């Protein structure tokens, strides 16, 4: 489980892994082993030699020597074994299309190049704007279908990528 925690205005990205009797709390590569005991209104937490009793109420955490403003900013949990059946899994070749007519001003890739999801493949000038066409997923460029200076129509395939990882369909 991962979440972003704001304590008194200072934010930290937290990673939590359950262990016997508690959790391993990872904060940007520092690891804290916490043993927890849950009671009705409070939680006893032991880290190292120190045990603290915390009362959590609303958006505040009460400890013996102070009150802290606590806010969960974002939470994400690792999805457990979710089977995603899509043909665009690893090994699938995906045609990347232009979404509008335009002129190719830059081809940023060559066949065989490794690309990451979101990386710019081709830059098109259209509507008096430069538009970057991104790679839909991590993978290897199998084919570059356009060249600089060429005018393309909407829906024209500009490149084919063999995907290595998950992609946005």
């Amino acid at each position, binding site marked *: 489980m991962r*979440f972003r925690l704001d304590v008194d205005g200072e934010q930290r990205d937290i990673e939590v892994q359950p262990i016997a009797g508690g959790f391993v709390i990872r904060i940007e590569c*520092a690891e804290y082993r916490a043993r927890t005991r849950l009671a009705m209104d409070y939680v006893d*937490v032991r880290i190292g030699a120190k045990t603290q009793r915390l009362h959590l109420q609303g958006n505040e955490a009460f400890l013996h020597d102070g009150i802290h403003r606590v806010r969960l900013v974002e939470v994400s949990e690792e999805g457990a074994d979710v089977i995603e059946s899509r043909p665009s899994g690893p090994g699938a070749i995906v045609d990347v299309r232009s979404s509008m007519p335009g002129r190719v001003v830059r081809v940023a890739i060559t066949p065989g190049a490794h690309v990451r999801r979101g990386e710019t493949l081709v830059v098109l000038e259209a509507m008096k704007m430069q538009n970057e066409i991104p790679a839909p997923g991590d993978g290897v460029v199998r084919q570059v279908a356009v060249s600089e200076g060429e005018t393309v129509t909407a829906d024209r395939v500009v490149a084919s990528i063999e995907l290595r990882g998950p992609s946005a369909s």
Partner: protein
Amino acid sequence: MFRRLLIANRGEIAIRVARTAREMGIRTIGVYSEADRSALHRRAMDETLLIGSALPADSYLHIEHVLEAARVARADAIHPGYGFLSENPAFARRCAEAGLVFVGPPPDAMALSGDKIAARKTMAGEGVPVTRGVDRPLRTVNDARTIASEIGYPVLFKATAGGGGIGMSRVDRPAELAAAFESARGVALANFGNADLFLEKYLRRARHVEVQVLLDSADGVGFVERECSVQRRHQKLVEETPSPAVERSLRARLIETAVRGLRAIGYRNAGTVEFLLHDGRFTFNEVNARLQVEHPITEMVTGVDLVRQQIRIAAGDDLEISQSELRRHGHAIECRVNAEDPIRNFLPSPGRIVGYREPTGPGVRVDSGVAAGSLVPPYYDPLMAKLVVHATNRKKAIEVMRRSIDAFEIRGVHTNLPFHRALLGKSVFVRGNLWTTMVADLRIAARLRSRGPWEERVAAIAAALVASGRVARGPTFPLERPSVARWSLAGRRERLSGGGHAVSPRRRW
């Protein structure tokens, strides 16, 4: 005496120089870049001028911009601080041409100090002991090989135009020499525009000991030595004075040698001579032709305001102390507090400081460039503040430092305070057994597990939130119900009227 002094620097040193200038009744003019618009040092000056965008090359290192600022502000003199343009002879000359007094050494002495080979040669000529090595640039890799085998491995490549430990490359075995030679040349060229290297014997487990010197036109004063062996990648982290390894007669020789050496190169104003202490003997390493970061520890044990003396000398006045009057009281230690994460290999940690509280008490001095709300930009040195303590002896100084580190609260960015805490607990440090590679050798940072009490508290809160199931539900929002003004409520009714409220439709049961 000057009427208007421009301080061509930022952060803690700019504030520190301004403090003394103000005490001397001099009007202080500061400079800042786009990234430093809300920087603390602006508030320490009587006036400040914008000199460029965030990148140092466009602001603090930009000679034209700095000189233009000095012209507009009608400054008489410029104090360069440390780093940036402080050891740039071209800048010193341009100041002179512009009729500005440069608070520092004469350009020629500065240039000589910056040429490591020339400095070495001159010192050797003066009878100052130098580390075994050559006094000329290495011509080819074979040249290097010959000399290296004469000196005996391990050897150290150094860039003649170098500094800050950059371009230094240690070679333990002949097989490694060729590759190290090429790479050191490349680094030197890229960083200093000059690929020339020379070679010295690498002294294992040497100690870095330096002597602060002040020279006016007539006299010279050398101060009790500083030990700066606690380093990481050639950057000093902790300095102290006096050195635990130097006793009285060695001290006298160090001081005498340093003053004599600087005189020989025509030096004026404040400067430091660095030595390496090895096997009870000392050899010359280099000259730092500027005021140094760690100068406060010297000030604490001697009671001398070094910046004040710098300004006086630059203005043509005499030193206010003489060698015979100089006394040393007690022991001082400085810890540099940087915005770095020691747990992630000292990764720079720029950001905004949301909480800040300095330690105080007798013998505690904090020279800081930040306060609560300050932005630590990613473009510059990560040094935020210098924590300096002074006590009657080294043992007490360590105690005061430990307590002060625990009391120093900086929240919002990572700091190297956990590192300092760990270092000051190490028995080798407490015994005074220091050497320049001790931080890496003892793996002090690598062994750190916690970033300190604040983060442990955050971890406890996180654990409590997960244990109580709060996290699974995601963020909770403390909702306040707004009251709707009658005016708009009337408008709402108007728009919504025309329909009855939902009449219960016919239902089957």
